[in-house]
C-alpha cells in the first residue's frame, strides 16, 4: 500500500510536471494575452500603469542652481530682446543705404527674429533735423523700407515686419551738433506683440 501510494504520488508529480511544461510551452507559443484574460479572475494581479524611480529629493543647493539656470535663460532671452529693441541702425546724412555696420546689426536682428517666430516688429525710420520735414519723412520711410527688404531677403516673413517714418519729428538727441545728428539718423525697432 505504501508502495502503491508512493507510486501515485510520483505519478501525480510527473503529471503535474508534464502539465506545467505543457502549459508553459503553450503560453510561449500563443500571442500574449491581455493580463486580465491570462489569469483566473480570482487571481490578484498588479498592473503597472506608472513607474516612478524613487530617488532622493533635490538639495537646497541643487534647487538654487536650477533656479539660477532658469533665470539665466530668461535673462539671456530678455537681453537678446533688449538688444533687439535698443540697438538702432544708423545712416549717413541724406542716405538710406545700409552701411556694413548697419548690415551686421540687422543680421543679428534677423537671428533674433528666427529665434522668436511669434514676434512682429515695427521698423521706424528717422532723420536728423537738417533738411526739410517733407523730404525727411520720405527719407525715413526709405530707411525703414530698406531694412524690411533686407530682412525679408534673409527669410523673415514680410507679414511680421511693418514700417513707419517719423522723418525728423522724433529725435533722440535734441542738441544741434554732428554727434546728435548722427544719433538721430536711425532706424529703431519696436516689438509689437
Amino acid at each position, binding site marked *: 500500500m505504501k508502495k502503491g501510494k508512493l507510486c501515485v504520488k510520483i505519478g501525480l508529480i510527473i503529471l503535474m510536471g508534464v502539465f506545467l511544461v505543457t502549459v508553459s510551452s503553450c503560453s510561449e507559443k500563443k500571442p500574449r494575452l491581455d493580463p486580465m484574460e491570462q489569469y483566473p479572475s480570482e487571481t490578484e494581479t498588479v498592473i503597472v500603469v506608472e513607474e516612478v524611480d524613487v530617488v532622493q529629493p533635490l538639495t537646497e543647493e541643487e534647487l538654487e542652481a536650477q533656479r539660477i539656470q532658469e533665470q539665466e535663460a530668461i535673462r539671456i532671452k530678455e537681453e537678446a530682446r533688449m538688444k533687439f529693441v535698443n540697438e538702432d541702425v544708423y545712416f549717413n546724412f541724406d542716405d538710406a543705404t545700409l552701411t556694413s555696420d548697419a548690415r551686421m546689426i540687422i543680421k543679428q536682428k534677423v537671428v533674433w527674429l528666427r529665434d522668436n517666430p511669434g514676434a512682429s516688429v515695427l521698423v521706424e525710420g528717422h532723420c536728423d533735423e537738417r*533738411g526739410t520735414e517733407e523730404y525727411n519723412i520720405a527719407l525715413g520711410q526709405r530707411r525703414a523700407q530698406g531694412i524690411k527688404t533686407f530682412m525679408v531677403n534673409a527669410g523673415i516673413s514680410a507679414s511680421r515686419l511693418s514700417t513707419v517714418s517719423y522723418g525728423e519729428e522724433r529725435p533722440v538727441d535734441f542738441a544741434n551738433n554732428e554727434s546728435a545728428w548722427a544719433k538721430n539718423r536711425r532706424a529703431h525697432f519696436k516689438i509689437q506683440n
Partner: protein
Amino acid sequence: MLQFMKMKILNIFLPAGSVLLISLFLIPQPCSAEYDYIKISDPFLNKIPVAVTIFKSLSEESAGKEISLNASDLVYKALAFTGYFKMIDREAFLEDLQVKGITGPKINFDNWTDIGAELLITGGVTIKDGHLQIDFRLFDTFKSELLFGKRYKGRLDDQRKIVHRFCSEMVYRLTGKRGVFESMIAFVSTTTGNKEIFTCEFDGYDVKQVTRTKSLALFPAWSPDGSSIAYTSYQNDKPEIFIRHLRDGQEKKISFDGINITPVWMHDNKKMGATLSFEGDEEIYLLTETGKIDKRLTKNWGIDVSPTFSPDGKKMAFVSKRFGSPQIFIQHLDTGAVKRLTYEGKYNTQPDWSPAGDRIVYSGMEAGLANIFVINADGKDFKQLTVDSGSNESPSWSPDGSLIVFSSTRTSKSRIYVMTASGTDQRVLLTLSGKQTDPAWSSSFNE
C-alpha cells in the same frame, strides 16, 4: 473820367442800403489795373508814399471817435503790410481833416504833396442803429483828384472786414489784383505741446486752432476755394492725409500702406497731388476728389515728394532724389517729360509755384541751414531772398504773388515770417508760444 468821379462823390451821400458790406458805386470791375501806380511784379523798389488820415466821426455817438481812430489804424497797418506803400507818419501831417472835412473840396492837396504823399486816404465813420458805416476816399494828391470813393456798411464788429474790403478794392484798382487782405494763413504750431494746424488772417490776427490730433499734424494745404485744409497727421501712428472741411469740421482720410504726405490741390479745386509709398517707393500720385488714385505721376526709383502745380494745371514741380541729392524738377503732366529746374546747391526742396505761373519759390540748404530762393519756371533769374538769418523754410506765395510767407529760426525758435516777393520787408507775422512752422497761404476769398 473826372466827371464820372465827381458823380460818385455825390452818390456817397445817398442813404445807405441795408445789405451788409455793400458798395454803392457799382463800377464795372476792371480786369487789369485801373491806374498805373504799382508794378506788381516788382513793386517794392519804388514804394508809393501814402497818407492815411485819422478818420472823421460823422455821427454823434461817443464810440464814433474811438472807432474812427481804430479804423484808420487798421487801414494804415493793412497797407503797410503789403510792402509796396511807404506809409507817411501822422506826425508829419500839416492839416487835420477830422476838422476840415474829408471830401475833395475841403482838402488842400499842397499840404499833402509837401510831405511827400502821392496818395491820400480819408474816411468818415457813421454809427447808426448798431451798424457801422465807413465812407472811404482815395485821392491822387498831385492831380488833386479823387481816384475812387466807397461806402461800406456792416455790423459794429465787422470793422476789420470793412477796412480790408476797402483795402482790397484800393489795391485792385492800383495793381489789378485783389491783394492779400481777404486771405488766410495756415501753419503748424506746438503751442499745445503737440504739432497741430492753426490758422490766422493774412496779418497774423485771429489765431485759431484747427486740429486736435494730440499727435503730429503737418503740411497744411488750402483748397483753392478756401473751404478745406488738407494735412498730414500721425493720429493713427502713421502718416496719413486728412481733408478737413473748416466750417463743419468733417474729415476725409486718405490712407494707403506706407507714407501718405504732402497733399496739394490742383487749381480746379478737385484733384489733388500727394506722395504715397504703398508701391514700395515714394512716388507722386494724382488723387480724385474722393481720395481715390487717379494716376501715378512720377515713375522713378528714388524719393519723389512735395508736388506743386502750375496755375494752368499743365505742369508740376516736385522734389526728386533721382540724381543723388534732392533737387527740384518740372514735369509736363500730359507728356510726362521731366526737366531739372535747380542746379545751384545740393539740397533744394519745398517748391511752391507762383499764382502768376512764372516763378517757383523753394528752400535750399547748405551746411544744415536753409534759405529761400526764387527761380523762373524756365530756370532763369535764380535769386536768393534770405541770408544769414537762421534756417528759412517752407515758403508759400500770397494769393497775389506779392508776398511770401515762410518759417525762420532767426531768433532761435522757429516763427512765421512774411517778406515781399523781392525779399524785402522781412518781419515776423505773429508771436505764439511754442514753435511755428509749415506756413501755407490761402487764395483770396474775394476773387
